[in-house]
């Protein structure tokens, strides 16, 4: 009996969390569209998420592109299929590795920072103070972060795509003696717009999820420094898991038949 009760508890707990997060997300999104708006806050979050994440995302992308070229060369050269390397690099980067790796890196950078900031605001009563100053915390804190996450991640991923392909190019041309023109022409011929668009859709979803997890865990954190630490951990872990699972779902929707 106890075992069945445990199953019930876990299932009910799961659905109650899904419900609470969904309600939180809906409230946050609804405030994106209802005035008053806070453009300065949105801009600040966009700079924080977009601009300051560029080095991390860029480094991730260039090394990923480089290692892709190197690895596929060791495999493909056995079958004299080296000419497929540009294809492998550009498709892997635009469809999967660009959005997923950028998402995971930004989850570590931004999700954690959001949870820590909002969590500290919660435990020092700054969020309550907003309410007493007739300012809705969802409008002032949550909506700008959701909007910034949603809009900046696709731009970051577009940059990551370019840098990733560049990484593959550098290794192929300078290390593996590919012809530069052929490599670029192959890259350009292979890639199709659904490859890039699916990656950008993923990025937008991931960006929203990262902000959502950071905001949700920060907003409801309690219990002082330990609670804020817990919120930060939860924000990063849950964002990472959501990114990986939504990645599968979106891939299935775009390419699965």
């Amino acid at each position: 009996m106890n075992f069945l009760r445990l199953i019930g508890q876990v299932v009910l707990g799961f659905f109650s969390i899904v419900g609470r997060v969904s309600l939180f997300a809906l409230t946050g999104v609804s405030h994106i569209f209802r005035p008053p708006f806070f453009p300065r806050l949105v801009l600040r979050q966009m700079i924080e998420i977009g601009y300051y994440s560029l080095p991390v995302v860029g480094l991730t992308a260039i090394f990923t592109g480089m290692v892709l070229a190197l690895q596929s060369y060791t495999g493909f050269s056995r079958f004299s299929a080296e000419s497929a390397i540009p294809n492998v690099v550009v498709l892997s980067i635009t469809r999967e590795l660009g959005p997923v790796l950028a998402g995971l890196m930004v989850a570590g950078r931004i999700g954690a920072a959001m949870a820590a900031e909002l969590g500290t605001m919660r435990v020092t009563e700054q969020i309550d103070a907003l309410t007493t100053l007739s300012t809705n915390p969802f409008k002032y804190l949550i909506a700008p972060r959701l909007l910034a996450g949603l809009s900046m991640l696709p731009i970051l991923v577009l940059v990551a795509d370019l840098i990733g392909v560049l990484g593959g190019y550098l290794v192929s041309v300078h290390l593996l003696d590919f012809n530069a023109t052929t490599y670029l022409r192959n890259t350009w011929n292979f890639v199709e717009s659904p490859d890039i668009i699916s990656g950008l859709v993923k990025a937008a979803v991931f960006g929203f999820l990262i902000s959502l997890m950071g905001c949700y865990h920060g907003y409801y954190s309690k219990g002082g420094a330990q609670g804020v630490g817990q919120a930060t951990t939860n924000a990063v872990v849950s964002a990472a898991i959501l990114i990986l699972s939504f990645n599968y779902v979106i891939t299935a929707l775009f390419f699965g038949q």
Partner: protein
Amino acid sequence: MSENGANSAPKKISVRGLTKSFGKKQVLQGLDIDVGAQESLVVIGGSGTGKSVLIKSIIGLLNPDAGTIKIDGETVTGMSGSERERITGKFGMLFQGAALFDSLTVWENVAFGLIQARGMARGLAKEKAIATLAQVGLSSDVGELAPSELSGGMQKRVGLARAIATEPEIIFFDEPTTGLDPIMGSVIDDLISKCVRELGATALSITHDMASARRIADRVAMIYEGRIIWDGPVSEIDNSGNPHVEQFINGRSEGPIQMQVTG
């Protein structure tokens, strides 16, 4: 609003049968309390007796399980979000830890309500903020500092300035002297009394600091086990005839109030 508050028109704050539990712990158990216009009521009581829950329920940060809260005769419990925001516009609050926004400068903190809620232009709001800072004894160059650069007493002053900047009708004070030395506590109490009087505002404070309660209160109410057990003018507090109140104001460990010391 002050003219209809003067002659026993609706009470500024009226709480009836307020009940709130957290899990199995019943914090408020049918609490009744009234605050008249331009009155300063101080609610005293030990830690964990529900003082903060009372104040947070009135402001709307917590939803009570049962009971009604009226502000100026309007029932606010169960109000929709936008109506509630209109009521919250009448409030100002000084938080225990001041709760200043650390991403903003001091003057931006003070001007926050003016800019965000009242839609005042930044330049004008800054002038008003500097003037309000002067009211609490802070010079204009403090306005450019970050809250983290200030001492605890100064943070409390800025918190007070932020609470009064929008000229609220009702101001809440959550443990205004906690964490301050006795002299700074006294200074803050005097500032609170002065600002509340100058605004003609109604004040509801919670504290366990009796010296502070005597300085800022017109009327004192004692909360115990989720109810108000004594309520009277501050001058009568030494002759309350209530053993709980006597134990509390004299700070005796022996008496009807048993502290739960769990080890």
